[in-house]
């Protein structure tokens, strides 16, 4: 019977791997996957790198913000486990933006005022709504507040199983995808051809190249660094509670392991009598 079962399992596995292998081979021929990067926030103890997030914010502000909204409150930028700007810096930064007040003034006029840390970062001025942006690019540039969580590439069997396991966990697929897109403009004669974008035809023309942003901390101003820093920043923007989550998780895990151990020995002791 065991031999029968093994045979059945083996034949099913073979059929699957054949079918899977064929489809993967076909896809991979023209659609490479974004390379996996080394992120400071990966793994059980990984946290954000403050200097990297600040550089990433600089890239966002000087390049991406021309077209992409980032709907997070200014005050989030003073998150000590995130970019960690001081509250004075955030106040000054917010004041450089003009924000439309939610309520009209006492004459009934909608008015603009300088931003405060409590405000959500306003949309890019050049594109007051998605339609205006779509008219210029054919497709509206997405809001970047959840971008790193909203992008993926297929990992395929069996990799997606390993991605969930302790020690092997791979939860940075979106970060790698964003990084891949920024470095994927590999055909200089076609600014809308991207190696990692599904189908290669991307609406966003190449947004950034070497030297476009001047870093002040001595990090080389290369495309690789821009892509990595802004991807890390966008990961923080999409998942700002990651550091708190992992810290709390560690405490919860230690507690649960001790609890499970105590229950195990109690259960063993009580059942000894009846076995």
């Amino acid at each position, binding site marked *: *019977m065991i031999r*029968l*079962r093994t045979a*059945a*399992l083996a034949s*099913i596995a073979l*059929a*699957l791997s054949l*079918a899977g292998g*064929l*489809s993967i081979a076909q896809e991979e021929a023209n659609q490479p996957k974004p390379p996996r990067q080394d992120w400071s926030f990966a793994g*059980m103890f990984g946290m954000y790198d403050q200097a990297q997030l600040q550089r990433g914010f600089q890239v966002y502000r000087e390049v991406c913000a021309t077209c992409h909204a980032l*709907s*997070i*409150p200014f005050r*989030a930028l003073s998150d000590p486990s995130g970019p960690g700007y001081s509250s004075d810096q955030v106040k000054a930064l917010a004041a450089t933006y003009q924000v439309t007040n939610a309520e009209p003034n006492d004459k009934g006029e909608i008015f603009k005022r300088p931003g405060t840390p409590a405000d959500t970062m306003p949309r890019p001025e050049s594109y007051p709504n998605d339609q205006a942006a779509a008219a210029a690019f054919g497709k509206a540039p*997405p809001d970047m*507040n*959840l971008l790193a*969580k*909203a*992008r*993926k590439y297929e990992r395929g*069997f069996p990799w997606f199983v390993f*991605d*969930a396991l*302790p020690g092997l*966990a791979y*939860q940075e*697929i*979106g970060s790698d995808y964003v990084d891949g897109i920024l470095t994927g403009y590999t055909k200089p004669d076609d600014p809308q051809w991207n190696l990692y974008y*599904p189908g290669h035809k991307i609406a966003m023309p190449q947004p950034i190249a070497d030297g476009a942003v001047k870093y002040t901390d001595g990090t080389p101003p290369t495309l690789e660094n821009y892509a990595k820093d802004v991807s890390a920043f966008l990961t923080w923007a*999409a*998942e*700002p*509670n990651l550091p708190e*989550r*992992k810290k*709390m*998780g*560690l405490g*919860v*895990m230690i507690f*649960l*392991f001790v*609890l*499970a151990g105590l*229950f*195990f020995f*109690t*259960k063993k002791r*009580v*059942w000894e009598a*009846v*076995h």
Partner: protein
Amino acid sequence: MGLVHSSFVAYPIPRNLNYMWAFGAILSFMLIVQILTGVVLAMHYAPSASEAFGSINNDIMRNVNYGWLIRYMHTNGASLFFLAAYIHMFRGLYYGSFKPPRELLWILGVIIYFLMMATAFMGYVLPWGSMSLAGATVITNLVTAIPLVGTGLAHWLWGGFAVGGPTLTRFFSLHYLLPFVIAAFVALHVWALHITGQNNPDGVEVKNVERDTVAFTPYATLKDVFALSLWLILYAWLIFYIPNYLLDADNSIPANPLVTPSHVVPEWYLLPFYAILRAIPNKLMGVVALFAAIVVLALVPWLDRSPVKSAKYRPTYRFFFWVFVVICIVLGWLGSQVPTEGLTLIARICTVGYFGFFLVVMPLLSFTEKTKPLPASIAEAVLAKKPPIAAPAE
């Protein structure tokens, strides 16, 4: 107090139960967690097409204190609820827990399972991400396959001519209602259980309460809390370290009726049924097969007439049981893939296998299988496993 004492303290349980019997307690726990976290989430959630996405992704996830924790508990809790339910159901199939005198218990379980699927599906629509909208569209469109009244029925379900704001609001209302209906059925399920008593790995009924059973407390209680603490480790791993693993990235994109995700997939726990739906070339027949795949579960007590309950003593049934498990997993994987000709063929073979297990293998084996001899009693089965030296020296 008397009820609690007789049901959860003095209540006798077979002494040979293994850890597969801990999932009843785990499932009760998961239901309570889902209801409590759900009630808190509903305090901050705005059930309207324009606000739903932001109320979850901006308010709950960023601004509400520990909102991210409650939400990750709820979304991952749904997955673990289903995982526990599947283990619980496979356990029932393996050990014949659906056989007389437990038919009613089993049918109540199938009803709970169906309610869970409806609740989970509507819950998945609430974040109003692009996969929420696509999923709601695919599933509610199934009713249009019904001849004559299908389209009218779909419009009535949607509250309009397509899935939209009114659909979201009514799904929210039902998503809040159904868990309490589930809780009521769980109460009936536990009641039915306590009338027949538990099945056990050897599938022989309790003959002598003294020798065959132990008291629920402390024996089952401690075994259950130990199993539950292991389950919580898995749950905590999902919540704190891989909270987005089971969520689709497309659901972090706001719903837009003009843009559909390139590849629409349901949550993992519905994938096998999705594969069955897609395996059938005719839409109406596909819908019929989808529902038949669930209804057939309720008929199991009458499809499998073998007097021997446990697969432990039914070698041929045991073999087909494991083939069936593999078929379910393969169907789940197929449901997640973009269908190609080859994959559709495999899905069709597996669909035939799925129904074949219930409609052909079960009835045939009922009469043809040569089963192994059953132990005379539970106590004897327990003692047979022990080396002679450990036998109680009276």
